């Protein structure tokens, strides 16, 4: 979870990545960021996010993203 927050904060230092609940819907995260996030997630968790996972609800908060990644670690 902390690592996810770290990834988000590195991309957008201006926001509070731990608490923001509408990163994607609010337009903070754009398509450029998604690619960066996929890259970081793969590097740190050995988890591959695929096109099927690219849905706004997975990227709206650090918690949602962590839930996604954790689910995929199985």
């Amino acid at each position, binding site marked *: 979870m902390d690592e996810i927050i770290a990834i988000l904060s590195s991309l957008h230092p201006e926001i509070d990545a731990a608490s923001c609940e509408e990163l994607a819907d609010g337009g903070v995260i754009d*398509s450029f960021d*998604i*690619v960066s996030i*996929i*890259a*970081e997630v*793969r*590097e740190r968790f050995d988890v591959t996010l695929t*096109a099927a996972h690219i849905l706004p609800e997975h990227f709206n908060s650090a918690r949602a993203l962590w839930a996604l990644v954790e689910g995929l670690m199985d």
Partner: protein
Amino acid sequence: MLFTSYTFLLFLAVVLTACWLCPPRFRWRLTLAASVVFYAWLGWSSLAYLAVTVALAYVAGRLMGRLHAQREAFLSASADRPREERRAYSKRNEAARRRVLAACLTLILGALLAVKYTAWAVGGANALFGTGLAAPRLLMPMGVSFFTFQTAGYLIDVYRGAVKAERGAARLALFCSFFPQMVQGPISRWGDLSQTLFSADKINSGDFFAGIQRIVLGFFKKLVIADRLLAAVRTVTADPETYHGAYAALGILLYAVTLYADFTGGIDIALGAARAMGVRLAENFDRPFAAASAAEYWRRWHITMGTWFRDYLFYPLSASRPLTRLSRWARGKNAAAGRRVPVYAATLTVWLATGAWHGASWNFWVWGLANGLVIVLSEECAPLYKRFHARFGLGKTAAYRAFAVVRTFCLMSLIRSLDIYDGVGTTFRAIGSIVTRFDAGNVINGGFSALGLTAGDAAVAAGAVLVLLVWGRRGRDGTRETSAALQTALTLALLMVTLVFGAYGPGYDAGQFIYNRF
């Protein structure tokens, strides 16, 4: 069998009547039979090609489906095992699925590549090495690009687990071959289309009549506008030296109208025919010429192709190992620019692929590259625009929006002219002549008649475009419910106008839908 042939109309009438009379639960089998007849009509070899594609997709789908099931079973049975073990199993399972997917995609996309590119490649090799190889005459089944992509989409969805593998071979065959979308698309998704394709409900009479209305509208666009103007467009592009400058601009403008009418008309016919059979196909257009940027244009024009490339190429490409590595490396160098580099790389790759999908010619490669570059450049310039607008307060005015719409239309029209000119060099020379020697006098003196259009033709085409504008407005105006009587009257009037003013029969080329070449 083209949409605008008497044979197709007769075929459609028979199929629609049969669908209407047939007990609802047998309807999908009837549609499958109709689709087989439709394809057999085009030739047994086309039918065989399609059948092999379906068979491959069915087997691959079932294999991947079984792998999914095995994984689920293992995971639920091994909840107490260590995570690493579970993870390793999942990875093996995914790798196996990926092998099945890759094998099947290689076969069907390879075949697509072969039928589309063999002649071009041989021609290229001959030109390059001075050899005299004869290109084998390969069959090019109608709609091969559409059904191959549709089938590939299904396979990728099954691989991802987004949809379940279909167990009924006949049902999958119908999905791959559903005849209304064979001529010009749209490209459907299993998840969408299977909702209504196998419906066992009685056809709703509202759907039926709405479908017929849509078909009439499609024929109106196609026959009254597109086929009338196509000859004029060809006159301009066949002789760019004579028709330079203002004529080239006029030709490119006419082509925008022609292609729009032809393509959206074909889609109207496909969607209308499907709907009259109780099947909903995805919309493929959303007023593309109202777009204020290239990216927006491509979200409004040929939507199902755009989303196909987005979901099955752009996203996977963006998430691919080489691009994610590139992303990390570039961000290490420069955080702001770095995060954009991989996306741009993916964008350009996708657009090159889109160009390649359209046809075997350099024109389409350049076309794809140009679209990609325009999108990347406008993305790069976006902050600049923003600052400019903030300073002068123009961004939100209607006038600025109008300017952006016109700018986008012109830009996309210029890129589109690569479709119609013979060769990349010719296209650029023609576009160049608009700047270097406009010679407006030529058009003023020669007018439309030099393009083979009489004043009557021009008036009919202009009137028809006006009708489309009004018709479109009426359709969008959700607030004003038009009565059934008015709708019927308008549709019949449109049908009458099409019958009289359609450019068909002796004296007109049986102009093919421009888009079924793809």
